[in-house]
């Protein structure tokens, strides 16, 4: 039997500017000295939690903005991962990048140090909207960045887009879609804006100063994304992710299959053997804690089988292929079809779920109302 593989996530919590919609653990305004201390701490944490025999199939540098760090620092952290774990030779090694940080030299350096997948936070090709959502780049930067990444040898490329942005019209969204397809990248993530508590957008909405498209328009935008991406040859493999065949993000599928991963860095979560743990969120305090203790875990939660099953349903239904019913039964010793019989019957009846012999997945209608479906499998 082959040894199971895990994913490794590395969090870089720094940004040039925090976007109004962002509720990730990200901060602007940190000095270089702090960043240097942070990189040291990251390496130390990775070494401290090393498992030389554990096979790693994917590594993902996310943020924040990983490209706020020097390419050498990113290479050093990646090397530390390689030295501490058994990283597969053909592992997927991704990083998120800000289009305005992209230079040929910088990107070539990253490619040379082993990163083989890059994802640009483009969000929209509309310069007016980019300003509205606090992005520091413009549409031309985005096009340039993609071209440079290709030139630097990244053939596995992704861009992020957002819809449902303040004052965005359906026509605006259509133009962004066309612009994205024109770049011929093999992977696209397209997110409907969610105004999260604690963000600047949330505060603006509370004050009545955020004018968002209607639910009807937003639904139409989602519909356009689905249709047009399909027409352009992309298949949607997750709620918000689209790929040309073979370019699905392997790392992110670990999350949606609810499998094990290590998370390093400030606020990063790990999931190993049914236990979810979380690191200290603040970068400075994270660095201090690691310097003192070698690790910075501040929360640890052992999921009950009930919770783990609920989460498996919640994340699994995000995948277009749906939940692998056999894998579910192997893992929990109970058939999802039995455990959730009434919910499944109801939701199939309502046309929100469909079931094949070994898969349970959202219908098209279920996709639009995914939260309503998932809620039924939670406590």
């Amino acid at each position: 039997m082959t040894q199971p593989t895990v994913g490794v996530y590395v969090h870089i919590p720094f940004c040039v500017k925090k976007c109004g919609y962002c509720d990730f653990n990200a901060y602007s305004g940190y000095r270089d000295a702090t960043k240097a201390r942070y990189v040291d701490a990251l390496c130390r944490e990775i070494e401290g939690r090393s498992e030389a025999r554990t096979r790693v199939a994917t590594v993902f540098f996310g943020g924040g903005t990983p490209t706020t760090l020097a390419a050498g620092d990113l290479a050093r952290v990646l090397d530390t991962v390689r030295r501490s774990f058994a990283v597969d030779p053909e592992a997927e090694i991704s990083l998120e990048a800000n289009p305005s940080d992209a230079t040929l030299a910088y990107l070539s350096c990253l490619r040379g140090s082993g990163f083989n997948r890059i994802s640009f936070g483009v969000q929209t090709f509309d310069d007016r909207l980019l300003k509205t959502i606090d992005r520091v780049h413009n549409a031309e930067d985005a096009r340039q960045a993609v071209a440079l990444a290709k030139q630097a040898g990244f053939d596995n490329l992704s861009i992020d887009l957002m819809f449902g942005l303040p004052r965005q019209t359906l026509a605006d969204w259509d133009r962004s879609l066309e612009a994205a397809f024109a770049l011929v990248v093999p992977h696209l993530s397209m997110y409907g804006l969610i105004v999260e508590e604690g963000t600047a957008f949330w505060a603006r909405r509370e004050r009545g100063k955020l004018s968002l498209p209607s639910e009807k328009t937003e639904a139409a935008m989602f519909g356009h994304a689905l249709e047009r991406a399909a027409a352009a040859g992309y298949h949607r493999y997750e709620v918000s992710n689209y790929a040309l065949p073979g370019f699905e993000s392997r790392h992110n599928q670990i999350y949606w299959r609810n499998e094990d991963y290590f998370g390093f860095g400030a606020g990063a979560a790990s999931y190993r053997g049914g236990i979810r743990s979380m690191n200290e969120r603040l970068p400075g305090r994270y660095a201090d804690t690691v310097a003192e203790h070698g690790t910075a875990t501040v929360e640890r939660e052992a999921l009950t089988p009930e919770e783990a099953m609920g989460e498996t349903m919640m994340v699994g239904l995000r995948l277009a292929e749906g939940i692998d019913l056999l894998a579910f039964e192997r893992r929990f010793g109970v058939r999802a079809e039995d455990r959730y019989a009434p919910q499944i019957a109801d939701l199939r009846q309502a046309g929100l779920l469909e079931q094949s012999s070994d898969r349970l997945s959202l219908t098209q209608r279920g996709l639009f109302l995914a939260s309503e479906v998932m809620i039924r499998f939670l406590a």
Partner: protein
Amino acid sequence: MPVPQDRIRNFCIIAHVDHGKSTLADRLLETTHTVERRDMQEQLLDQLDIERERGITIKMAAVRMPYIADDGLEYELNLIDTPGHVDFTYEVSRSLNACEGALLVVAAAQGVEAQTIANANLAMNSNLTIIPVINKIDLPAADPDRVAEEIENVLAIDATEAIRASAKQGIGIREILESVVRNVPPPVGDPNKPLRALVFDSHYDGYLGVVAYFRVVDGAVSAGDKIHMIATGKEFTVDEVGVFTPSMKRVDQIRTGETGYLHAAIKSVTDCRVGDTVTAAGRAGQGVEALPGYKPAKPMVFCGLYPIDSAQFPDLREALSKMQLNDAALSFEAESSAALGFGFRCGFLGLLHMEIVQERLEREFNLSLLATSPSVVYRIFRTDGTSVDVDNPANWVAPTQIEHIEEPFVDATVIVPTDYVGTVMEMGRDRRAIFGNMEYPAPGRVMLHYQMPLSEIIMDFFDQLKSRTKGYASFDYELSDYKPSSLVKLDIQINSEPVDALSFVTHRDKAFQRGKLLVEKLKEIIPRQMFEIKLQAAIGGKIVAAERVSAMRKNVIAKCYGGDITRKRKLLEKQKEGKKRMKQFGSVEIPQEAFMSVLKISE
């Protein structure tokens, strides 16, 4: 050495809400050293949390205070606390009957309010000696001379010697105590006659059973005595008698003219009702006449209480039974609703009583409840000459069989500054009030008397009155009689199915408008769901208003990656928790507030 009967004083404090009754009671306890200041839990007499939160006294307490007066003699002062709300008028009248005197507290800034008048009238009807106290004289807006004038004009009480006090600052407290000693007559019962005592309150204790608060009129009572309750006919052996100091303190005997408590393994307050007369069991008590005025508590306002989770039905039954042990005015019987399943139709003294019971059920028994809109008891006369009392619109009689309908009316009193007379008159018109007369108790203030349907009062009247008069209006009412009214039942349909729990009764002329407002309100309250929802109001099958809640088009969490899974799960769980608070009607989820929304349709 007990003090002789002529040095006992039984008195109470009557006041409008917020005029400082509880603070004054605290000061009396302190000044008489019954409770030392450092032990003083703010406003000790209000025992229940809910009472304290709402600043309203519901349950009374009777505290014994030893007091050395200026004449150098020790007196026994019994302070009997009274509830300050119209729902509890009967309880007020019973506790007033246990007293010989009353402190009439009026705040120096606000002046006489509607409840002041109602309670002062009750006190005068009980022949109590009234000592006017003008409180809060320390406040900048205080105008004690004007208030004294008001007390004389409105209540016809001589206020020339009204004590000017500030309970908060401790001003005038000693004068009040001296005035009680000098002016309140001692009790006049006969210690040699057989026991005769008035039950003026009770509470239920899990270990002791009912603890009855009583006032001995004649004779005395001790532990071991066998007693007989005249109204309920029940007999018990007294386990213990005692007094409140304010904690319960056992004594050997409660003598003529004194107040105290007793417990006797009484299982329910329905066996020992407020207003009942206690006498000796057997021969000794034979021929003892009951004290006047006993009335079994009669619920005036009804609503359906349903568990959100139908599995909690037995728990709700048990909780209501337990509440009833302590609250004889609460009635309940099982009922079922097509929309809500199994629940109970509960009867209350009034709206406040209803809210308090509901809150206590949720808080103390951990139940999630859904309450339907309150209803009064309508009297429907059928064409065949029979009549029926209906406390639930779901049981309405078919229109063709109705000859005429009567509904309960109240005598209502509103006091407002002159500027708001127009507003009050307008509200009165809207609420079908029959104007009686208008008085001018003091410059700048008007007192209006109305007869109006109780059903209009339970429709959010008081809150509306308060908000439309910027809080200046005070209001009180008492039930008068039944009068004929032109009433219809309005049905609400959701996706063309009538929802019985949303039906309500309204005057024919307002049915159309109320139906329209209600469906509009429901449209706001009912969240979008996975399909369109049709809302209609109908009278006798004829649709009078309609609205639609359009279908939810999209509800997706866009991003869910590793670090986020727990948070997203908790987010969805929270949403689910919200849904659990809703009632499933067919496939439509209806939030609880929808069932109370009838109350909130402002015109």
